[in-house]
């Protein structure tokens, strides 16, 4: 997995972190290294353990095994109110009986910062999130987006060593969410705080993070930059979870020329990765597939749909149905029921061992 190994920059380290609820393992030996100033997303479907991981880092849940160190110091040994982390909750969790400014000032009061400094810092924090005129409003009189910003200011004003964001944008409408994504990115660039974002929304994770941590069933599936995870998913789950993908069953074995190849129906593709021989799967994005004259996978066009900037094809092959996206750029495209051959560059595909859970064919992210 990418991202591990460069220990020189390690700031937050999760080492074999584990949490069990009865017989169920919510987080299963999760290990992760986060660099200082990085924005990293824990991404996965609900119940994948991402929030549990965050709660253990925050100290609201006790770990059943493993270690967490922040800047070389053991974090799990400290009480939650001594960890000095900033947290933005899904429900915002603002104090309803305090004004926006009092909410932001609370953490500073707990740090016994004198009144003059406190007022200045609160004003700065509110300005950072664009709420300088709203200091004396109560949360109940603010919109969801404004409450979100107050929560962010309240968490940032204490200059946390780490900012944890638990599905911070899920309660906002689509337009507001987009605005807050840009806002969050800008603030992260301005203050440079290390952030961990928990989300189930892959586009949000892709848009915001330096790296994404894809989780499923309590296990970390892949840690990579959004682009890497998208282009070279480590396994079928990641391939399916991040955007649309075609997953084709095949057989991995030695090729005629010496290297490893994967055979999918009537086509053979060279494999650059290390994959054990035997049943495997090939993942390739719809937009990376083109129509070729020879050396590809043959099939029949089942349907083609015009979508303005692009054409969407569904193609029946011996290995299953494929989804293909072609740009609407005037080049000739096959008609429905036409026999075609499709192909892609070997570097555009990812090969992985067969996953019994995943059937072949076109899948969309949840």
């Amino acid at each position, binding site marked *: 997995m990418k991202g591990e190994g460069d220990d020189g920059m390690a700031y937050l380290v999760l080492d074999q972190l584990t949490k069990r609820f009865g017989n169920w393992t919510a987080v299963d030996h999760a290990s992760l290294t986060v660099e200082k100033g990085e924005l990293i997303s824990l991404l996965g479907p609900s119940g994948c353990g991402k929030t549990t991981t965050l709660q253990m880092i*925050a*100290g*609201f849940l006790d770990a059943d095994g493993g270690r967490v160190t922040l800047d070389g110091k053991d974090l799990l040994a400290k009480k*939650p*109110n*001594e*960890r*000095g*982390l*900033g*947290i933005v*909750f*899904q*429900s915002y*969790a*603002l*104090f*309803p*009986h305090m004004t926006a400014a009092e909410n932001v000032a*609370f*953490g500073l009061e*707990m*740090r016994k910062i004198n009144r003059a400094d406190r007022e200045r810092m609160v004003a700065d924090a509110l300005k950072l999130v664009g709420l300088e005129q709203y200091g004396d409003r*109560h949360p*109940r009189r603010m919109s969801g987006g404004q409450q979100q910003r107050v929560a962010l200011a*309240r*968490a940032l004003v*204490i200059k946390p060593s780490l900012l944890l964001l638990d599905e911070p944008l899920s309660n906002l409408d689509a337009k507001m969410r987009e605005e807050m994504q840009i806002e969050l990115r800008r603030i992260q660039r301005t203050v440079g705080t290390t952030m961990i974002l928990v989300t189930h929304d892959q586009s949000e994770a892709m848009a915001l993070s330096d790296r994404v941590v894809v989780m499923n069933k309590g296990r970390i599936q892949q840690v990579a930059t959004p682009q890497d995870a998208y282009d070279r998913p480590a396994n079928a789950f990641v391939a399916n979870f991040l955007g649309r993908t075609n997953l084709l069953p095949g057989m991995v074995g030695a090729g005629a020329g010496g290297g490893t190849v994967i055979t999918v129906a009537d086509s053979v593709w060279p494999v650059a990765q290390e994959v054990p021989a035997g049943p495997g799967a090939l993942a390739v994005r719809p937009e990376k597939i083109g129509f070729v004259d020879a050396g590809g996978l043959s099939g029949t066009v089942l349907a083609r749909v015009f979508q303005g900037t692009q054409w969407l094809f569904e193609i029946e092959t011996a290995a299953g149905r494929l989804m293909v996206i072609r740009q609407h750029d005037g080049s000739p495209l096959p008609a429905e029921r036409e026999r075609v051959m499709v192909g892609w560059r070997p570097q555009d595909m990812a090969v992985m061992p067969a996953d019994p859970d995943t059937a072949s064919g076109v899948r969309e992210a949840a």
Partner: protein
Amino acid sequence: MAASTETQVSGAQASAPPPPRRRRRWPLAPYLLSAPGLALCAVLLLVPLVMTFLLSLNSFSFYGGIQNVWQLGNYADIIADDYFHEVFLRTFRIAALVTLLCAVFGAPEAYILRRMKSPWRGLCLLIVLGPLLISVVSRTLGWALLFGSTGLVNQGLMGLGLIATPIEFMYTETGVVIALTHVLVPFMVLSVWASLQRLDPQVENAALSLGAGPLTVMRRVVLPQIVPGILSGSIIVFALAASAFATPAIIGGRRLKVAATLAYDEFLNTLNWPLGATVAVLLLIANIVIIVGCNRLVERRYKQVFE
């Protein structure tokens, strides 16, 4: 307005919907719809109250009975007489103490109950609500058995050698306060419970993450948010404690009279109905004044929470 005052008046208001916009003439429907509720209120509450008030204006003589005259002599008697002052003072002292004790025990009790895990929570809630399931007389007689000079508490303490002579619970204010607190604490628990339901559980975690210790979280974050619940609970408890009859009658007896037992005695022993009615009317007025006053005071202080 606080939740409790809403519930008190809801019977009269809930059935009256806003009048339709288009209709120009006096809309009849809302009045017709609320008529049964209003009639019930009038017959069961308003009429007896007015009659009690009218009765309190009559005078009474030992030989002639109730004299059908209209005067304020009974009120003058009570205002002038130290004995009545003492009874009223005692009534409100007991009510205030019971309210305070209910708040001190009930609020933490509700908070702890909310944090309990599933099977224990139901069980403990049942125990808390237990007093309400038992008849007021048998419950109070139970306390009398515990409290008596040969009761379990005194026997136990003397047996342990902690006290030489029995502590007097019976016929004392202490006894009445303890027994009333036991009866009324469920109202406080339920009222605080309701306001805890509205509390976002993450708010406490948020305060922790900002560096607040557990006690600060309670004082600065949880307590201010459950004040409306404590207040509405206090109003219920105070009103019930000030007008309680059975418990002061059994534990306090003849020696320790409160307003309710005083009115009862005037009605049934002295047969001075007008004086009893005067006591009842004064008790009602004092209750309303104290409750509305306190409500206003706290409401102003915690204006933001009540919105």
